[in-house]
């Protein structure tokens, strides 16, 4: 923090040749620096942060319709994730396995009468519909700007307008940060603003004394103006969250409702949902799953319900009769039990 009651500027540094003295002696910072640099910077940052959120809200694009193919694929993914997740253990083992096979088999595999799995069919369908959509768009564009090299160079399935929308929200923040950085380093360059109240190693010099590279001997706990800018920028996030409050319940519900109505604010920028690819990946994952490695709660539900009354145990205790489960020869069993009996006799 800036130390008041001092009209000495940063000239009172000890001689740089004596490192021991340097670490112990404190630097007196002008109170004018506090009044005209530190506090204005803080105020500017808070105002800029508020401005950024509200401009970002204004620039947010209206919700766009979700593509029919994507919605269908996402719903299918939801269904698969349920089967793969823990709830898969609550249906019968055989039926789980039947679903797994029916959804994931490849064409030509012998296990499922040579029919393709449901997921692979869905993927093929999504692929073909996507292609049809692209072709449609191309013919539509063909009339207006067939010779446009930009649209010709575009990858199929990439819509320039959707790419722009993702950037729009970030644009405000980016432009603002650039302008602010330039302004701060132009107006407040070279000030030592603040001293943090604890010693720091030289490794923090880059972080705390940006823009003061000439002062190699200055103690690391002094913070330069540009570094103060960065510290405040990241440090204020929690403050903004507190100041602006959480989004209204009505807003959150509205967003949910938009989804039901088939509209969506675009996801994270650049994150394009590629339905056929995702579906194929899911099918492959499902194909690799194994029934034996899973536990089925349903299979031992009766056993759990009956608890001690479950009759299987009685049978083992008796040790007589055939092994009904595997149809093993009873000879072994008898030999085993007789050996046990012999041991007991011993």
């Amino acid at each position, binding site marked *: 923090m800036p130390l008041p009651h001092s009209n000495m500027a940063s000239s009172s540094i000890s001689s740089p040749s004596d490192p021991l003295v340097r670490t112990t002696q404190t630097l007196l910072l002008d109170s004018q620096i506090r009044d005209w640099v530190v506090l204005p910077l803080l105020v500017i940052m808070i105002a800029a942060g508020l401005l950024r959120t509200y401009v970002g809200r204004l620039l947010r694009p209206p919700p766009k319709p979700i593509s029919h193919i994507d919605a269908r694929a996402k719903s299918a993914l*939801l269904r698969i994730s349920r089967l793969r997740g823990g709830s898969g253990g609550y249906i019968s083992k055989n039926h789980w396995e039947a679903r797994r096979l029916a959804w994931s088999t490849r064409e030509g595999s012998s296990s499922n009468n040579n029919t393709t799995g449901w997921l692979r069919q869905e993927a093929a369908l999504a692929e073909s519909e996507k292609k049809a959509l692209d072709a449609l768009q191309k013919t539509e564009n063909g009339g207006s700007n067939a010779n446009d090299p930009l649209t010709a160079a575009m990858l199929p399935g990439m819509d320039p307008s959707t790419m722009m929308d993702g950037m729009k929200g970030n644009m405000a923040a980016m432009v603002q940060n650039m302008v602010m950085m330039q302004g701060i380093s132009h107006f407040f360059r070279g000030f030592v603003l603040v001293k943090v109240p604890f010693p720091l190693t030289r490794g923090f010099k880059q972080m705390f004394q940006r823009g003061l590279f000439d002062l190699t001997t200055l103690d690391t706990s002094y913070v330069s103006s540009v570094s103060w800018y960065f510290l405040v920028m990241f440090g204020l996030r929690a403050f903004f969250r507190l100041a602006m409050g959480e989004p209204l319940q009505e807003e959150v519900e509205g967003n949910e409702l938009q989804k039901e*109505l088939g*509209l969506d604010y675009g996801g994270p920028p650049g994150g394009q949902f590629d339905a056929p690819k995702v579906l194929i990946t899911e099918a492959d994952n499902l194909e690799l799953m194994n029934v034996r490695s899973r536990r089925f709660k349903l299979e031992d539900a*009766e056993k*759990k319900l009956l608890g001690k009354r479950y009759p*299987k145990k009685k049978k083992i205790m008796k040790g007589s009769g055939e092994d009904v489960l595997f149809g093993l020869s009873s000879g072994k069993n008898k030999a085993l039990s007789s050996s046990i009996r012999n041991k007991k006799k011993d």
Partner: protein
Amino acid sequence: MIGPEDDLSTLIDRHDHLNILRYIRAHKLRESQLVVAHGSKLFGIVYDENDNVDDDDNENAVVVNITGGGAKSLGHAERLAALEQLCVASLDVGNIRLAEGCLAAITAAGAGGANSNSAPLVTKSSTRYRKLVGLYLEATGDYENASSLYRQLLAENPSNSHAAKRQYCILAAQPNKQVEAMACLNEYLMNHPGDAAAWYQMYQVRLSVCDYEGAAYCLEEVILACPLDSNVHTLCGEAYATAGGLASTKLARKHLALAIQLNANNLRAWYALLSASESYLEEVQKLTTSTSGGVGKNGKRVAEEEEESIEVAKELIKLAGEKLVQVYKGKKMMGIVERILKESSESL
């Protein structure tokens, strides 16, 4: 977390109308009576249900009250959400006039008040508004217009799952269009395979055409979505038990046992377990006796394979009987229950 943090009864005691509505919305409850009661109070509507004489007057009163009422302190988002909720709830309880008032108030929001020149917040072309209009048309029995509205919405945006769902509902509500309804539901499930509620609807459709295996398949999809629901397991067990056959009855027992584990007081599951175990024993008996004349070997094999399972079934019957007796001890129903249990104990 979303929604008010108090529970519903405290909010009701406190007459915190807005937060009651928010609570019901956040927890996705279907408390239409409550919503209508507290929504009306929130917007200062004095609504007399028996007043059918001057229809128009009353309607106007509702509209005026909603736009001018004591809800001025609400923000636009809160107000509109509350109006939407009130509209749906009033349709649910059959209060058409209140819904009309809500619809009018929604479109008037932002435009009304002191400066009537400002543009309304909600235009009539808004998808969310038209969704409400569709519900209103359905409630008044105007299926033609509702259906065409939904068709229009779907044409604008094919992934509007709400419109697709309502189209099925319109068909299902008409007794002479059951076949079309089934086709519509099928189509919907093709496009939304992850919708558990639609699978449950499909279960009911399958049940109505006596396709018990298909019904059980649909219920398994529901189970995958909410695996810890005792009632769904009960229904699934019942569907399998009704489908019949050795494997199905065995599976029914398992589902019912799981249902009981999830909720030990699920009496329907206890009865069903009793019945399913019995029918399982009957199936075994059928296989062993009917084949004894011709292919005795098969029957013997079945008997051997199922030996352990038969024991389990008998234990289950005993356990269920004990539980039921314990529950009904000293009650009027005891005589009937005892008679049922006596019948089933004969198969032991």
